[in-house]
């Protein structure tokens, strides 16, 4: 091998290694930049409408309370869709980890139907009930949070029924009654005790 060939091969190898190192550093920088950006991916189809202030009634397992919290979310004009979007935001808080009142992955509100001027029917995903922790207290917190959040943000709604995947279910996870209609007056008794 001539001297010139040896030098040429060495330079080529050095260039390859240099390029590799440069590409590696570019990749790392890009990853670091991406991590510092806010996560703007939508968790569901984007909703068209102006941002509105709503009150979410969030459950906290410890110390076992339901507390009001303001939130600003884009809401559609249709009341039933508004209800769905508000509950979707509420359940999203419970699906996040960590959460003060964890609900399973896949838990969500599929639809809200306004049967008449006073009655709403909430249809949840099967995952919400199937993966829900079993217990009188944890189930009660979930029901109270859903019902109070909906009735507080949809004026005139005084009765709420909860379905699971479009069907009636006896209990949420073995304890909380899902066959009844929840009314605002009796729910207020419970919330008074959970404040």
């Amino acid at each position, binding site marked *: 091998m001539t001297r010139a060939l040896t030098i040429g091969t060495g330079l080529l190898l050095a260039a390859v290694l240099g390029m590799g190192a440069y590409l590696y550093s570019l990749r790392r920088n890009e990853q670091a930049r991406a991590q510092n950006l806010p996560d703007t991916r939508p968790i569901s189809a984007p909703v068209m409408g102006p941002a509105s202030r709503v009150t979410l009634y969030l459950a906290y397992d410890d110390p076992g309370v339901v507390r009001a919290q303001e939130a600003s979310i884009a809401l559609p004009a249709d009341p039933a869709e508004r209800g769905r979007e508000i509950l979707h935001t509420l359940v999203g808080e419970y699906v996040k980890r960590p959460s003060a009142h964890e609900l399973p992955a896949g838990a969500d509100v599929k639809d809200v139907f306004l049967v008449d001027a006073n009655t709403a029917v909430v249809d949840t995903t099967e995952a919400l009930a199937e993966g829900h922790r079993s217990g009188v207290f944890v189930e009660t917190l979930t029901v109270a949070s859903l019902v109070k959040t909906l009735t507080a943000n949809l004026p005139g709604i005084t009765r709420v029924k909860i379905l699971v995947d479009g069907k009636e279910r006896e209990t949420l996870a073995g304890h909380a*009654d899902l066959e009844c209609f929840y009314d605002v007056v009796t729910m207020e008794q419970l919330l008074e005790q959970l404040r």
Partner: protein
Amino acid sequence: MPWSKYRRRSQGAAAVAALLLVLLASAPSAEEKQLSIYGPRVSYSLPVSEHEGQDYVALLEALEPFGNVSARAEGAKWKLRFNRLEAEFRQGTSVGKVAGQKFGLPGRFVLENGRGLVPLRALPAILGLMLATRTEYHEAGRRLFLGGVATHFTTDPRENGLRLNFSAPVNPLIGTEPGKLKMSFTRDAVVANASILKLENPLVSSITFSESNGEAELVVLGRVPLLAQFAADRKAIEIVPAPSEAQSAPPAAIAGTALPAAAPGTALPAVGTLPAAVAVPPPPTLQSLTAKPAFVVMLDAGHGGDDRGALLNETLEEKGVTLAFARRLRSELQGHGISVVMSRDADVTVAVEQRAAMADAARVAVYLSLHAASQGPGVRVYTALINSASSKPGGFVPWDTAQARYVLSSRALAELVKAELLKHEIPSSQLSAPVKPLNNVAAAALAIEVAPSGADVGSVSAGVYQQRIAAAIAEAVVVGRARVEAER
């Protein structure tokens, strides 16, 4: 709506099934055999069943109050683990193993719905081996004494009566019949050296002692109408002549019915101030016999069978914890002279609506739905989330709002349970909640959720912890009985 139709149909079927179950369950209590076990720290009763002409008891239930016990059936084989000891039997055979030793049973081992039943005559020896203690069995009275425990009594004639002194506090049921004062001891290890004691006393001619069906009974034969009064420490009972006006007072109970003594520390604060029995009542009238149904508490051990309830930790299922707790609570209530029916007494599936239908068909006075949770602390007591204003007058009670008429009574009872739990230093809270099937029960109805006292989830199944809770709840029922009765 289609689901309403379906539900009504299933409710109807459930009600019929429940009625049949209740009719079976509410057979005369005199025919229900029981065994009483007296230990140094705990006394309790167990139901006795008959197989092939012999008396049998469930071994797991017999050991439950003494520590961690679990059992599993593998085909015909049944294994029990108590602390570090094991027992093993096979269905249909009379030879097994107890604490590493070969053990012969006086009858065949019975496996029934996953429960291992042993002949009653073998139980003293099995408990002796598992608990490493001395046992003494009074076969005729079905009373088993562990570790040499016994409560003796002596008589002490007084100027105006007779005093019975006991070596330990006692809490008998006291009833009267013409010329007699009867004291029944279910939870007290009362024993006597003789079956009859003749007395030269102006009030009392003799005292007889007998044992039967897990109870000891002292019958005081009087020369005049008698009254019994407790001392505050419950270690003495004064027998005094009944005041003459007591004879004309309205009867507090139908003749021959035992009257429960008041709960310790609740209704007897002072020495000799409150009679624990009434003087001889007049014969029962038709009105008194047809008035209210008896005061019965229904214990509904949550879940069971296919429905395991919550998984409290890797191995602990809610259905097992609730059943063990229901049995303890049954024993406590019966110790206070209160009749109890259970929605289930084995690992079987019972539909939620069927439980309410059973309570309504049996016309129980109090319904307690028992649950367990992994997150505490302590005990949460729930009443139905229902408005009392929705109660409607009329002969028929709407299924969905059956609780409305009773919810105030339920809340009052819940407050008492909470207060008694706090007295026993058990954290507790009370709230309304949409617990199934409280809304469908036409009686004072509570759901009780037992959670661990601290961080250890396993403590929720600990015998001592459950016993304390059961004692507190039973005392609350005793204290609240009058109000519940008044509002039925």
